[in-house]
């Protein structure tokens, strides 16, 4: 998809989202859609480091929580508007990504993953003991009741998350098709070989950790107004790590479309499961689908479709060959 076509589709989606929010008043759909879109952002962000670069990051909750807590601080300090919260959340989480990148990117494979997991534990302990943001007992926030043009604030939050999702996907798509994406793919395939070929591996990996962290922080920034109650246990939930990893794996981790497919599929399944089968099946769904995909379609849905298309193309060529 060309840049212009992407921007046109994105603009259309934003307008459609706005129009829907004017017509549909049932708030449940906005709450559910918000969660799914939040996962689109998280999965896309994870994929920049995990999918494009091949560095598996278990620290999603750390970046997400940092975005959320940055908003909490900004709200408490100056009753900051949502726009400022988004910028603040992305900036702080991006800086953390950069810092952590410097400290951990010399580690490879499982050691890098463990370091990112440890990051979440360290940050959680920090926030558990920081009374200003509510400490261990958490903090209730009062969100504005309405937003201009949107009526109810929840509709506004949905539209904001829709824009954030489009922004994250746009960034991921741009990286994938730029020289950065090609460099990251080279790192994923063989880091030593890439280094020998002159790819600035450390610099590119730092770009990946920073962008990925900033987008995760961006996803977390509106969370305090969404849930109106922030406590370490819920923002540092390991579910964010599991989901943001599982979604690109299921959708396909080598392209920007994969995380969207995975997030929409899994996110919707989880939302439906919450209000239908009503049990712990949520995580089980993720687990079972993940195992099934790893075995049956290791390259995710996108990879599966590409493989099927190639096979079909081969069959057609073979038929042509036989005919001539």
């Amino acid at each position, binding site marked *: 998809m060309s840049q212009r076509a992407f921007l046109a589709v994105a603009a259309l989606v934003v307008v459609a989202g706005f129009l829907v929010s004017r017509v549909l008043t049932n*708030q449940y759909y906005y709450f559910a859609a918000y969660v799914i879109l939040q996962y689109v952002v998280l999965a896309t962000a994870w994929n920049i480091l995990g999918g494009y670069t091949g560095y598996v990051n278990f620290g999603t909750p750390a970046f997400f929580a940092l975005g959320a807590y940055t908003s909490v601080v900004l709200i408490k300090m100056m009753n900051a508007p949502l726009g400022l919260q988004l910028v603040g959340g992305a900036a702080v989480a991006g800086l953390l990504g950069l810092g952590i990148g410097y400290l951990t990117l010399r580690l490879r494979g499982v050691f890098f993953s463990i370091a990112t997991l440890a990051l979440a534990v360290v940050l959680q302990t920090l926030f558990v003991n920081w009374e200003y943001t509510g400490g*261990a007992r958490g903090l209730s926030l009062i969100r504005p009741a309405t937003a201009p043009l949107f009526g109810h604030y929840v509709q506004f939050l949905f539209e904001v998350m829709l824009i954030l999702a489009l922004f994250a996907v746009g960034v991921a798509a741009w990286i994938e098709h730029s020289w950065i994406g090609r460099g990251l793919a080279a790192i994923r395939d063989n880091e030593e070989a890439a280094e020998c070929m002159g790819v600035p591996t450390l610099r590119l990996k730092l770009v990946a950790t920073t962008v990925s962290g900033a987008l995760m922080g961006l996803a977390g920034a509106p969370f305090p107004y969404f849930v109106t*109650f922030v406590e370490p246990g819920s923002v540092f939930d390991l579910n964010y790590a599991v989901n943001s990893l599982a979604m690109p794996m299921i959708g396909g981790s080598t392209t920007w479309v994969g995380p969207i497919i995975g997030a929409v599929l899994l996110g919707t399944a989880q939302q439906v499961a919450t209000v239908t089968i*009503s049990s712990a099946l949520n995580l089980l769904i993720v687990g079972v689908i993940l195992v099934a995909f790893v075995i049956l379609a290791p390259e995710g849905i996108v990879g599966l479709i590409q493989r099927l298309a190639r096979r079909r193309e081969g069959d057609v060529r073979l038929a042509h060959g036989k005919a001539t």
Partner: protein
Amino acid sequence: MTSKRAPGTRAWISIVVLLAIAVGAGPWASIARAADPIKIGLGMALTGGLAANGKPALMAMQMWAEDVNKKGGLLGRQVQLIYYDDQTKPATVPAIYSKLLDVDKVDIVMSGYGTNMIAPAMPIVIDRKLLFLGLFGLANNEKFQYPNYFQILPAGQNPAVEVSLPFWELAVKQTPKPQTVAIVGADAEYPHNALAGAREVIKKYGLKIVYDATYPPNTTDLTSVARAIKALDPDIVFVASYPPDSALMVQAAHEVGLKPKLFGGGMVGLQFTALLTKLGPKMNGIVNYDYWVPEPTLKFPGIEDFLKRYQARAEKEGVDPLGHYLPPWAYAYCQVLEHAINGTKSLDQQKLADYIRKNEHDTIVGKVKFGKNGEWETSRVLMVQYQGIETSDLEQFKKPGKRPIVAPDKYRSGTLIYPYSKVK
């Protein structure tokens, strides 16, 4: 075959028939609505960290709905509970409550179990000016001061202080009067609150804190903490902990031979069947908070019948077999709603809230009167001392005597064994 009637006549007949159907259907429709059940919606922790308490609480609520329906329902309508599993995750709560209200069109919403599950539902109910009954939330309404919120945990209007107040009142009455105190708890929501409240009371009574520390919530061994406290030899050890670390603390105290004059206070979990039977005799002498125990001073009408039925059912459904901690309260907060609906003969949220605020309510956990911020007007936190536990048998806890109430005096049913070391 064709009709001989003119098209105009046929049109008129159709209009008349349609009108007749419409006029006739009106009353039928309202009768059908009247026969619709009263839908009560809630999210409940059926999986995740609080599920062990969430499941019995839901069962108690289902028992209440069945009891009401057997009596003919409320306002002549049956009661139907619509519930979803909040997975003990606050982030699921907004979607659950908007689903209940916008899709399931429930008449009343009630809270799930615990402070963290109540908090995210508050903006939704406040936004729609609904009545909201809370189950075991600590100070959820402090910030909102929403007049239509009522909470069933009997921790009074200053829960952080009230939860340990009877412990300290009891302590300063003893001879020889204790002088030094060690306070310890987990780095988590409730312990932080309880320790802050305890510091306030300790200051008021002029006791001296010699140890004041917290430990990470996932600590798996507390012997080093118990040793550090033992080295200071305090008269009182006040512990504010969650179930896993409550068990660890009791075991650690035994292991290192910690023998203060008074031990316990704010340990969550010692009230639960799982820990009562796990720790058994090791709990003897500990003084800890509770909200209801089978002592003669707390035999409110209906409680024994409820527990008998609950325990029979719990065995089949594989949930908390004793049901002393949360189920009576889950049943009671439904009774408050029942009382209000019967009292106002209405489902009007404001009328129900006004009624609950102004009246005292008879429940199986006693008379309930709400005060500021929807909390109990007067605290009824009890201090019990575990006494005479010789085995880990469950049956012993169904009878009085194993957890006599030692404070406050109004509900006292036994004598405190003091100092703690005398028990061992």
